[in-house]
Structure formats: structure tokens, C-alpha cells
């Protein structure tokens, strides 16, 4: 479904990605772990071209999207949902409008169709009683669940999660991970950058360990967590696991 080929990304002089190859199949859940500054988020942001790779190709459903013009890229982005560390709900819109805006303005759904979808998604996220609340009136966990509903409302083929729990208070992490688990059970294709190792072990089909702009090692959760082969993986895990 997604194939990244030899992705390089430079910011000014700093090379953040140094030739990354990654394939994600339909229905697969891939979790990317690694120390800060490893290039995990940048890699994820290259998938929907929020970040333009300096070189390399991003193939989505067999088509190289790095060669597309702006309009075509917008059409691809409709099909790739994204959830951000800093949540980024639209502050001036209430919950319902946050979720219905893109289906109405981008997909051209009618207001009532979009609200129908939004209502059922928000119910699933457990925030059906906050439809008319504004983001500032919600807790961090509620905000992130609305953001997930907002991405899902476009009925994407794949979901990208960029450290979705890193900015949350500890007691709100589980409610967000729970809805993500339920997406996994539905068979959603997902690429997740996270520091929640317990969660990663539980939901991932494949773990990618990144460091210093490279993929150092990849494998099943069992292989990576119980039997890592690379020294850098061992060092990283020994630092973060009790």
C-alpha cells in the first residue's frame, strides 16, 4: 500500500533521514520506535508529504506521489489520515464542525451525511455528549480522541499517528490507546510513532527501530523486544525498559 524508497531529508545542513526504505502492506500495523532526533516523525510526515523528501520516492497504491502536483497530492492526503502529537484541533470550531469540515469541504458530502458519520465516530470515541463543545473546553485525552474521529471521518485507507500520547497527562494516555487498539481490531492500516512500548508490543505486526536517520532494525515485537540483534537496539531498549 505504501512504499518508501531511499528517502533522504535534509533541513539546511542537518540530514535527518539518510536513505530509508519502508513498505507497509494493507491491514498492517507498523510501529516506529527510537530515540528523539532519530527521524521518526520526519519519516512519518514524508508519507503524506507534509514534509517533502529531499530525494527518494513515496509510492502510494503503486503511484509515485512525490511527482504529483499540488491538487493531486490533496486528493491523496484525503485517503491518509493523520493524528498529531500536538493534536491541532481547529480551535475556532466545535467538536462536530471539527469532524465534519473536511468531509463537507473536501469530499463534498452534504452536511447531514457528514454529521451522520461524525455522530457515529464520536460515539465510538466516547465523546457523543460533547458535540458542541469547543476544543478549549475538553481534556487532552478528549481532544486527541476528537482528532482521531476527525481523521477517520474522511474514511482514509491508512492512519498515521505521530506520538499521539506524548503531550497528554498520564491518566489520559490509556483512553487514547484504547481507541487506537479498537482501530487495529477493525483491520485499519496504521503507522504509529510512539514511546509507549507496552502498546507497541501489543498491537504491532512489525516494529521499526530507527536511530540517527536510519532504520537500524525491524521485526516482529517479539524479535525486537525479546531478541534484538543490533547493539544500538539493545542499548535503546535497556535505557527505556525497566
Amino acid at each position, binding site marked *: 500500500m505504501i512504499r518508501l524508497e531511499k528517502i533522504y531529508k535534509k533541513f539546511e545542513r542537518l540530514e535527518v533521514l539518510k536513505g530509508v526504505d519502508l513498505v507497509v502492506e494493507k491491514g498492517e500495523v507498523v510501529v516506529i520506535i527510537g530515540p528523539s532526533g532519530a527521524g521518526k516523525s520526519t519519516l512519518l510526515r514524508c508519507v*503524506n508529504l*507534509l514534509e517533502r523528501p529531499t530525494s527518494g520516492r513515496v509510492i502510494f497504491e503503486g503511484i509515485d506521489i512525490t511527482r504529483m502536483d*499540488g*491538487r493531486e497530492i*490533496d*486528493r491523496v*492526503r*484525503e485517503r*491518509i*489520515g*493523520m493524528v*498529531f502529537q*500536538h*493534536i*491541532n*484541533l*481547529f*480551535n*475556532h470550531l466545535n467538536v462536530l464542525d471539527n469532524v465534519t*469540515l*473536511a468531509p463537507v*469541504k*473536501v*469530499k463534498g458530502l452534504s452536511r447531514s451525511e457528514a454529521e451522520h458519520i461524525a455522530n457515529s465516530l464520536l460515539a465510538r470515541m466516547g465523546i457523543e455528549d460533547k458535540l458542541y463543545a469547543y476544543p*478549549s473546553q475538553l481534556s487532552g485525552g478528549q481532544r486527541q480522541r476528537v*482528532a482521531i474521529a*476527525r*481523521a477517520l471521518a*474522511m474514511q482514509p485507507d491508512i492512519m498515521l499517528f505521530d506520538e499521539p500520547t506524548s503531550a497528554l497527562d498520564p491518566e489520559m494516555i490509556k483512553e487514547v490507546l484504547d481507541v487506537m487498539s479498537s482501530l487495529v481490531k477493525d483491520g485499519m492500516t496504521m503507522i504509529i510513532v510512539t514511546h509507549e512500548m507496552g502498546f507497541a508490543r501489543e498491537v504491532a505486526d512489525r516494529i521499526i527501530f530507527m536511530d540517527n536517520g536510519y532504520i537500524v532494525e525491524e521485526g516482529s515485537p517479539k524479535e525486537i523486544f525479546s531478541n534484538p540483534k543490533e547493539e544500538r537496539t539493545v542499548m535503546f531498549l535497556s535505557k527505556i525498559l525497566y
Partner: protein
Amino acid sequence: MSDEPFFPFLMSILPHLGKGTLMTVELTIISVGIGVLIGIFGGIARVSKRPLLFIPSTIYVEIIRGTPLLAQLFIVYFGLPSLGINLPPFTSAVIAMGINSGAYVTEIFRGGIQSIERGQMEAARSLGLSYLQAMRYIILPQAFKRILPPLGNEFIAMLKDSSLASTIAIAELMRVGREITSRTFRSFEVLAVVALMYLAITLPLSLIVRYTERRMSVSD
């Protein structure tokens, strides 16, 4: 007439000054209205990465802000006729003041747009909205709320600067004041009343601006 006591004299000139004030307010509202229309597009152009938008909008802002409004007013009213373009005084004033205001409002919008966190644009783009859709539905509505205080200040500044239109025969407050002065020779009293009438509009406005500023710093 000029020996009249102050109060009856004031009463006799107030209707004229009132009409002048109305003209001043009308001139200002239309000019700042044009300014806001220019400013929305100017602001978008000023934050654009496209040289074709960024460079002309920057040149526009620098030229207008670097030259006196009076010169701009004269160019439109006295200068354009020598190119064969004759505009009536009110139209000239509104064009010159609107273009002038547009440069300042452009910079206000630029600041407002840039004050919105980058994540808002990214979230919108990730959903498939185009850059312009993201501007229209996400960035500008939030920016607009934040720039209400500076827009209020721009309105106040333009209200005072509109007195320059008195030089091209528009019967706004300043012009009416000077006409009464030349008729009655009671310069000090008349001009003081004129100044007070400007103040009577600008003072409440600036209080409102200060109040919204304070309320926003709380809610942000």
C-alpha cells in the same frame, strides 16, 4: 455674530459640525473597508512562498507606508487628471485612503496569519484541504479574531488622518471647522470643538480596543 456668547454660538455651529462628522465617519468606514478587502489578499500574498505574490505585495506595503498619505491623496486628486483621469473629490479620497489603509491592514493580516500555530495548517492539509481552503476555513477565521484590536487601532488612525481630505474640498469635520473659522474668526473655540469631536469618537473606540485586547489575553 462673532460677539455671540460661547454656548449659543456652539449651538449654532453644531449642526454643521455634525454633518462634517458624519462625512468623516463615512469616509473612514469606506476607506478602512477597502483597506480590509485589500489587506486580506495582501496578507495572504505577504506570507506566500511564491515570488509573484510576495514581491509585489511587499513593494506595495513599503511604498505606501513610506510615503505621506497627503502625497498619495494629491497624486490621486491633482495628479491623475494630468493623465486624463478625472475623479470627483470623494472618490479620490476613498481611493487614496483605501489603498493607504490596505497597506497597513495587509501587515496586520500578515501578523495575524503568522500568529496561528503551524499545526493548524498542517492538520488542515493532512485532511486534503488545499492551501487556500485551509486559509479560508481554518487560518483566517482564527487570525481575524486575533487582529480585531489592531484593526480597531487602524480605524482610529484613519479617522484622524481623514482630516487630510479637507485639502481636496471634502466637507468633512476638519473642512467644516475651517470654513466656520474663516466666517467667524473664532478660530480657537471652533477648532477646539472640532478636536473634541474627533476625540468623542476615538476615545470610546480605543477603550473598546483595550477591553477586547485584555479579554483576549485572558482567553488565550
